[in-house]
């Protein structure tokens, strides 16, 4: 099929899709007229039930905790998938870390970049942990915190080079942290089953104060595990992608 034919087939298809979408739209309540009642009910009861002031986190890690287990394992499986797809292929060998084009004029990483990257690494780790441990209080949580934590490691890569990055995030340790993060979440759920409750029931003491770190029972704990998992998964994915630059094909 030529590109022009392909475009016409697509335009016919998408016109139909948009027509049906707009038709379906007429049955929806207009923007801002949320019909409820589910969201309203959760907003009303969540704070009293979980002692978490962040209702989105309460939904993610408590009410819909089971879905979030699945979501976390999608990330886990994707990281494993990246590692599998980017494995060393037949005929590929790892390139020694020497410059093969010595006459090429590569400007060294500027002092400003190194300075700023190193300056931000520490604060990013703190912010990442803060986000991962305050899911119950405000718009944060393990997913956001984990990504910020992973970016601290990427700053190390930016400040130094890939081999330094590898030393700071050794594969064995990231693998173990990722497993602890994913397994910890599942284990919190199983612990509830062990106590005779439903899977992922919030069985811990919910604390005295709304929105404090010690409040909300398992929400804070699960968020912590998710933070570990997400940080490790992203570090692993970035490391796998960067490692590709070290591979050369045999005879190529």
């Amino acid at each position, binding site marked *: 099929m030529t590109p022009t034919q392909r475009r016409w087939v697509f335009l016919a298809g998408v016109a139909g899709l948009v027509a049906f979408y707009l038709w379906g739209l007429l049955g929806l309540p207009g923007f801002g007229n949320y019909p409820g009642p589910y969201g309203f009910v959760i907003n009303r009861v969540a704070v009293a039930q979980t002692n978490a002031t*962040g209702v989105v986190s309460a939904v993610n890690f408590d009410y819909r905790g089971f879905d979030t287990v699945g979501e976390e394992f999608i990330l886990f499986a994707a990281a494993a998938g990246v590692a599998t797809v980017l494995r060393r292929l037949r005929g590929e060998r790892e390139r020694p870390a020497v410059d093969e084009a010595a006459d090429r004029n590569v400007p060294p990483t500027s002092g400003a970049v190194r300075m700023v990257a190193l300056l931000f690494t520490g604060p990013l780790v703190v912010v990442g942990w803060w986000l991962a441990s305050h899911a119950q209080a405000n718009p944060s949580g393990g997913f956001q915190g984990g990504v910020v934590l992973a970016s601290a490691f990427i700053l190390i890569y930016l400040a130094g080079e890939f081999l330094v990055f590898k030393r700071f995030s050794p594969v064995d340790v990231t693998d173990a942290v990722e497993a602890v993060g994913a397994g910890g979440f599942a284990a919190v759920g199983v612990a509830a089953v062990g106590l005779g409750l439903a899977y992922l029931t919030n069985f811990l003491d919910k604390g005295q104060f709304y929105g404090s770190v010690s409040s909300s029972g398992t929400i804070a704990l699960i968020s912590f595990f998710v933070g570990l998992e997400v940080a490790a998964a992203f570090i692993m994915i970035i490391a796998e992608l960067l490692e590709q630059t070290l591979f050369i094909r045999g005879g190529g």
Partner: protein
Amino acid sequence: MGYFPFIVVAWILAVGLYGIVTSRHLVHQIICLIVVQSSTYVLLLGVGYVTGAVAPYYFDITVHTPAVDPVVQALTLTDVVVEAAVTALLCSFAIQAHKRFGTLDPQELVSLKG
């Protein structure tokens, strides 16, 4: 406002699909898929919006303040994470495709090679 955000959804979806269909580069195609998926964020957040309501965080407001639906916001968060994971996986496929076929043009990747 009426239905405007939902029409934006249709637009984002359609341009993303157009990009996928006409793309001549796998990485460009992956980015178009991200655009398609972004339309679901707008749809979810648009469905849960309540005129005049605040974000569902009761840290410094009373429980009786009207707030938007937190469930669709949680779904959007899920969506973002899954998208990041899928993008990483697709990028690694693109790397391997380039290694094996020497091209990233999907129209030249017509035959399977063992």
